């Protein structure tokens, strides 16, 4: 049994998203394994970003359930209990299950601990790198500053927490190789560095699940390779599960443990990279030919 079946962290069930008459995602179900790097791929307009926006709360799904698990609580029982309760969460001794479709976006980031990056980078361009990473630690710092009052009076708890936050920011800047530019405005960074900074900023929220929307878009091969190293390190050193949308197949096939393929809002394949690579449906979706013409088209492309 695969990891995403035996130990899932995220469970998307019958997710449907309609915009007026258009059904962008139709009854989509998949699991994301804890500690896995899961890739969500598909041709343009397949509904990948819509799925992301549903998971991170920027869209309210029309139908379906999105469960997220912290700790070792039994996922099915937890989901059942949360669904029947009037709340969006059920706690137990070993962890908690959150129903993301019931939560507003900032609570998904704050409580369910799902962080995300954006396809068109959304950094705070006029703020320095370190400020960007400090904003990401807003909730922890807010608590330490007694909701501003303690901070205003200069309480020690806040100054200690602020120092710790700065150290954490410096740690992540070092990790993405931007420590020497810590005091530069984020808008001044080259494109590849901005992508890395956005990932670091998301990681500063201590996420359980990190959702990356095309992290390798616009990167050169070396930067792409560095990104793979960074993603592997996030998974192994920080225990964060990663869900990513990607067009760059070298990234997808190299780092991911699990690939889900979407086409026209429907899941057409789900499995290990090797399984998906040889799935005729996937090849058809990408090359846009009928199944019986497949072999001819394949040789044409390789030639």
């Amino acid at each position, binding site marked *: 049994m695969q990891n995403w079946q035996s130990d899932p962290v995220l469970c998307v069930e019958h997710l449907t998203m309609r915009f007026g008459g258009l059904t962008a995602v139709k009854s989509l179900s998949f699991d994301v394994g804890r500690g896995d790097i899961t890739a969500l791929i598909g041709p343009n307009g397949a509904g990948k970003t819509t799925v992301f926006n549903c998971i991170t709360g920027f869209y309210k799904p029309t139908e379906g359930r999105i469960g997220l698990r912290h700790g070792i609580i039994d996922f099915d029982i937890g989901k059942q209990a949360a669904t029947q309760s009037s709340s969006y969460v059920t706690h137990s001794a070993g962890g908690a299950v959150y129903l993301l479709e019931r939560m507003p976006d900032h609570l998904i980031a704050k409580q369910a601990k799902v962080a995300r990056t954006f396809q068109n980078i959304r950094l705070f361009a006029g703020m320095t790198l370190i400020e960007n990473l400090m904003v990401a630690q807003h909730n922890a710092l807010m608590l330490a500053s007694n909701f*501003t009052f303690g901070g205003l009076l200069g309480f020690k708890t806040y100054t200690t927490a602020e120092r710790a936050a700065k150290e954490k920011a410096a740690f992540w800047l070092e990790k993405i190789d931007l420590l020497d530019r810590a005091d530069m405005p984020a808008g001044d960074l080259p494109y590849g560095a901005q992508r890395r900074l956005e990932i670091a900023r998301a990681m500063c929220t201590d996420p359980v699940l990190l959702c990356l929307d095309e992290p390798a878009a616009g990167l050169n091969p070396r930067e792409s390779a560095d990104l793979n190293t960074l993603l592997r390190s996030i998974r192994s050193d920080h225990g964060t599960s990663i869900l990513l949308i990607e067009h760059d197949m070298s990234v997808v096939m190299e780092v991911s443990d699990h690939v889900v393929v979407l086409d026209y809002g429907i899941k057409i394949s789900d499995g290990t990279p090797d399984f998906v690579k040889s799935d005729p449906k996937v090849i058809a979706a990408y090359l846009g030919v009928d199944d019986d013409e497949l072999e001819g088209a394949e040789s044409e492309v390789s030639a």
Partner: protein
Amino acid sequence: MKTPLHKLNWLNAFKEAAIAGAVTFTLFSVLLGINIYQNSNNDTMIRLRPALLVGFSLFAAALRFCIILKQSLQLQVPAHKKIGWFEKVEPHLQPILVGLMAFFPIIMLGLLGGQASTKWIDNYGIVIMIYIMLGWGLNIVVGLAGLLDLGYVAFYAIGSYTYALLAQHYGFSFWMALPVAGVMAALWGIMLGFPVLRLRGDYLAVVTMAFGEIIRAVAVNWRELTGGGAGINVPKITFFGLPFNANEDGFAAYFGLEFMPIHRSIFLYYVIFTLAIITAIITIKLKKLPIGRAWEALREDEIACRSLGINTRNTKLTAFAIGAMFGGLAGAFFGARQGFLTPESFSFEESVLILATVVFGGMGSLTGVVLASIALFGGMEILREFSFVEQLIGIDPNRLRMLIVGLGMVLMMLWKPRGLISTRTPTVFLKQKKSISGNLVKEGHG
């Protein structure tokens, strides 16, 4: 390589200048060229003023010529690296400005003596300080959180009327009413904040403008409470219980001084100075706290804020509430200074002028607000000193007040489109604090 932004083309420069001159001539032909007046028989007479009109047009043409000349001399530097000389001077300017503000009445007293300096402390010092405080309060909403508020005067009005009504009905003194005025204004800030949470940019500006007008309309029409257009009396400020009058129990008598109206002016000046400095200190501290960083992040990118778990609703509401609170405090002071309130003091024009100080100063910059307030309100007031110009050009410059302010705004925006201090200072740094060019900093959109 540094290359000029535009190559200088003399012919083109003259052409542009001629066009500017012609446009000015056409626009001002009726306004300046024809003077309607009444002679001693009360007949309406028309007098042509070609010299003034031509002079004005030539001035505009020369100005346009200079701008083109300047553009051709300007070197092309990557936009984001550009930090103007003015921003470099700014850190040295700060202590000078604070010193000037702190010792202004004393300097004036020393220079002009007790009689002549009253006008300067009253009409210049106190008025400018009130607008500096209002500018600093609005700066939190507009400059930091990036929420365009065109109805800030509403909170100023709420503060004033809170003090006036508490004093009238419950006998509150200024110092007792001051915190209540602040809290009331903050509550109304939240009240305004809720309905406009989802609005951005122009739409937000229109609704906040309407809010400002609603408060004024209520003050005009609810005669039983506010006295309507006839106004309401407010007890004048006392020196912690000692009134500023010539009586036995007055301030002067108590301290064995000769009674002079300037005592009250100096006291008022230091009250508003203290309130304004408290505003500045709290703003500077808040900027470095998570809430302040969240405001600035909100101005930069609201969606990114939400993805980081920041509650944008609460963040916006705190910005509205704290900004409004300072407006309310300034309002209570205004009431205590005037001794009499009418809704006319809280017109839309006031909101616009306060917003202008924030935009001119450079959004988010405290020093900028001070400079802009001095230039705008000091400048408008000082026009009164130039009445003699009427003999020279035939028009009292006071009547051209708004025209001159408008012209100043246009020139200012040509010179510094992002305000006097367009750079942003980081709130936290690892090794070295470096200013951020205004071109990277967003203005916010709601």
